[in-house]
């Protein structure tokens, strides 16, 4: 289906696809097997100016929007979403700074990120997943800045990134309204990492705990004002959800292509599997789902880029729908490829393992459905 992309968008999409096919495809199985962080590919992405896509022009970026970012993430995920996540998480880790940072803060950090320095976003804690308001990490005012104490859990790019956006409580008495956002550099005394998690999927991405023990960050590293943390986080997640949707669309697309290729050449009962009506039915259903997910993700991205004030519901819908599609399509892709689909020699089983996370992180689909229902009731379901 033609989505009437601009020439600039097509250029970005095509280059991302080239990088994925030439640089990621040959090593994806090995990265998955060894749980290796794809530094060489991050360098390729940086050299190709891919990190500049989501950085504003004033800070050495290309000033692309939500849709441009989604196109890159989709193309990378089509080949390996584990690698795509390292890139996408850097974008996520930059959004708070881009949206709310001061000139000095942006000048200090954004050009480096545009050039390929990785970033990360740290909200989740052992006691606070979906219940993000239950975070316990504190940031106490001390001489010279704020002292961070606490542990963040399941942080993507943890340990690999240079710059972290950390949400911590500056005023415990106010609950979520007492949270603030801080920029913390790797190597700051008092900031260490826990063990690297062993995951079901997206194994090329690095997931670690962040441990803060009296980690002092200068006052100038707080983004915006104290207590503004959660408001910024909610907005930032709305902004990034189409990107997660794009990740889901990408992995589903990759699975669909692999399934069609396999069923074309696998001969059973004297003919290719793809000739059998029952298989065609499944493939058709998969194709419809992928296209619908793509259309919804692009539409949600375009809403964000239009400058609309409120895009919570559309972003949430895109993420929920696309991630459920990804899980269903990758599962069906394994099914339709039969025994081969189950074997590590073929890419299908990895895609199914990779798809699962998209239903869970950046707002589990259950939490998001609640949020969608709330908005639905508020607008009395009017379109």
């Amino acid at each position, binding site marked *: 289906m033609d989505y009437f992309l601009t020439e600039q968008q097509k250029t970005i999409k095509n*280059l991302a696809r080239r990088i994925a096919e030439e*640089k990621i495809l040959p090593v994806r199985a090995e990265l998955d097997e060894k749980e290796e962080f794809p530094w060489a590919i991050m360098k390729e992405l940086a050299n190709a100016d*891919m990190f500049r896509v989501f950085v504003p022009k004033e800070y050495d970026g*290309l000033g692309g929007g939500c849709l441009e970012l989604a196109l890159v993430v989709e193309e990378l995920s089509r080949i390996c979403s584990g690698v795509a996540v390292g890139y996408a998480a850097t974008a996520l880790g930059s959004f708070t700074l881009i949206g709310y940072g001061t000139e000095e803060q942006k000048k200090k950090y954004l050009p480096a990120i545009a050039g390929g320095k990785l970033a990360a976003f740290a909200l989740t804690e052992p006691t606070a997943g979906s219940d993000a308001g239950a975070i316990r990490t504190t940031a106490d005012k001390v001489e010279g800045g704020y002292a961070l104490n606490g542990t963040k859990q399941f942080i993507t790019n943890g340990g690999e990134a240079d710059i972290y956006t950390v949400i911590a409580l500056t005023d415990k008495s106010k609950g979520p309204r007492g949270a603030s956002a801080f920029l913390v550099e790797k190597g700051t005394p008092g900031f260490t990492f826990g063990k690297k998690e062993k995951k079901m999927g997206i194994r090329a991405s690095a997931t670690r705990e962040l441990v803060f023990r009296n980690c002092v960050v200068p006052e100038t590293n707080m983004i915006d004002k104290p207590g503004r943390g959660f408001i910024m986080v909610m907005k930032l997640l709305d902004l990034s959800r189409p990107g997660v949707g794009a990740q889901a669309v990408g992995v589903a697309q990759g699975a669909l292509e692999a399934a069609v290729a396999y069923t074309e050449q696998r001969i059973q009962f004297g003919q290719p599997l793809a000739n059998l009506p029952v298989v065609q039915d499944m493939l058709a259903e998969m194709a419809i789902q992928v296209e619908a997910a793509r259309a919804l993700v692009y539409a949600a991205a375009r809403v964000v880029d239009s400058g609309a004030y409120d895009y919570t519901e559309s972003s949430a819908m895109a993420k929920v729908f696309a991630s459920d599609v990804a899980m269903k399509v990758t599962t069906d892709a394994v099914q339709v490829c039969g025994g081969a689909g189950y074997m590590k020699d073929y890419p299908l089983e990895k895609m199914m393992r990779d798809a699962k996370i998209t239903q869970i992180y950046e707002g589990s689909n259950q939490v998001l459905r609640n949020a969608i229902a709330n908005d639905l009731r508020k607008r009395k379901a009017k379109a």
Partner: protein
Amino acid sequence: MNVVVCLKQVPGTTDVKIDPQTNNLIRSGIPNIINPFDTYALEEGVRIKDRCGGKVTVTSMGPPQAEQMLREAISLGADEAVLLSDREFAGADTWATAYTLAVAIKKLGQFDIVICGRQTLDGDTGQVGPELAEMLDIPLVAYVSKIEELTAQRIQARRMIDEGHEVIESPLPVVITVTKEINVPRLPSLRGIARSQSAVIPVWNTQQLGADPSKVGLTGSFTKVVKIFFPQRVCQAEVFEGELEAQVDRLLDRLKSAGLI
């Protein structure tokens, strides 16, 4: 460093097969590409610029559509491009090609190093680089697989020969031809693509080059193609049949009678 890289646009594939029934070429819309060895030359030029500062100028003698290839070179890191194009250039053999390139390179001004790929996909001669060096009256190091050292005055380059490799030192300016062992060409960058779209690429013909018309194109060529034919290959293999093991046995018998084992 002022680097000049010579590029040639070639058909995307050399698999021009012949239809046995009609004796005609089987073609399927072959897109044109930068001659593969030239991509290594361009990459090396851009790496020299990244290391030493300076500028990379790419040039090509070709038809008007070669401009697209020069734009691609800009997206890969070249700073400027010049297309040498004129109907009069058609039919040039390597001597006339080298002459035309030499006139253009002299017109470009001061340069430190000229880089060429070791040979083209279609012509396969590998002669233009060496002939160009002679016409520019500068030294040549051919089949370079690595630049060991490069200063403002000299280059030390590793070059491949049959028995192994040599390290040759040469003063600058110099012409080098490169092999694919020298580097891994980069992918284009988004800013490079944007630059290539807005770049202005001048086109120089015989007159603008100030070239001697008797030395360009078919007129300036010493060699001429008098016949084109497709190599005939007759299937003559004794392809064994039957059980695999029996086939292997039969093969070994044949080799034994030939005195090979």
